[in-house]
């Protein structure tokens, strides 16, 4: 006989599985090869930083590990040449 806790865990796992199947998130750069990561295009990079200027983690943006590394480099280069902010207090 299952106790309450294991019942709840089973339910959570079922929900999580259903959630993942429904989402089907994928890397926005892997599917479309036309989209490139370029530090000289801050408008495109803005999608991957928060309002404050922090880099959005890939668990949220859904970017694959390889492209997240490239993205991080590009954002840091753009910040260094003042095309993007390090932080914003607005």
């Amino acid at each position, binding site marked *: 006989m299952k106790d309450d806790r294991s019942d709840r865990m089973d339910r959570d796992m079922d929900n*999580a599985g259903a*959630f993942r199947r429904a*989402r*089907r*998130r*994928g890397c*926005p750069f892997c*599917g479309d090869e036309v989209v490139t990561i370029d*530090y*000289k295009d801050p*408008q*495109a*990079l*803005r*999608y*991957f*930083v*928060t*309002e*404050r200027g*922090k880099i*959005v*983690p890939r*668990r*949220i*943006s*859904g970017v694959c590990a390889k492209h997240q590394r490239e993205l991080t480099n590009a954002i840091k*280069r753009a*910040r*260094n*040449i*003042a*095309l*993007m*902010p*390090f932080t914003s207090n*607005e």
Partner: protein
Amino acid sequence: MAVFQIALPPRQREYETIYLMRPDVTKESAGKIASRIDEVVKRENGKLTLVETWGRRQLSYTVRRCKRAVYVYFKYVGGNGLVAELERNLRMLDDVIKFQTVLINPEVDVAEFKVDPEAVQFEELNLPDDVEDEKALERALGFIEPQKHARGNDFTDDDIENISDDDIPDLNNTKDGAQ
């Protein structure tokens, strides 16, 4: 035992550099900087492949008390020591407030490069005078609401710390993407 040494041509690499000039830089001063860069690249046996002037732009943060700067971007091919020499020269120029060099291609064949002579000419700087925003003081004092910049998403830092799986947006579907 005889040792044969084959003299290989020095390896050439492709770089790109962006430098920022003060917003109130004069046409003559910008011209001097351009000719100095041209001279250094030639002296170090390099080759300019592209020059672009992006004009005066708003900076994301203040650099040497400047809120705007004139951006110049150029690409070149060169060997050992060219970047160091170029950056040493840029560092000495008072009107250059910031610069950054990025390696694009670690090994290139210079003979393959066909350069358009017009693309490697530094443009003469013809910008209107840099006028400080008249409403800047009023905005700083809070009389006017600051303009919010266009952003790609609306995530706040708290969102990232406290986000749950249900809040994760689907970036592939732009219609209901960022929440």
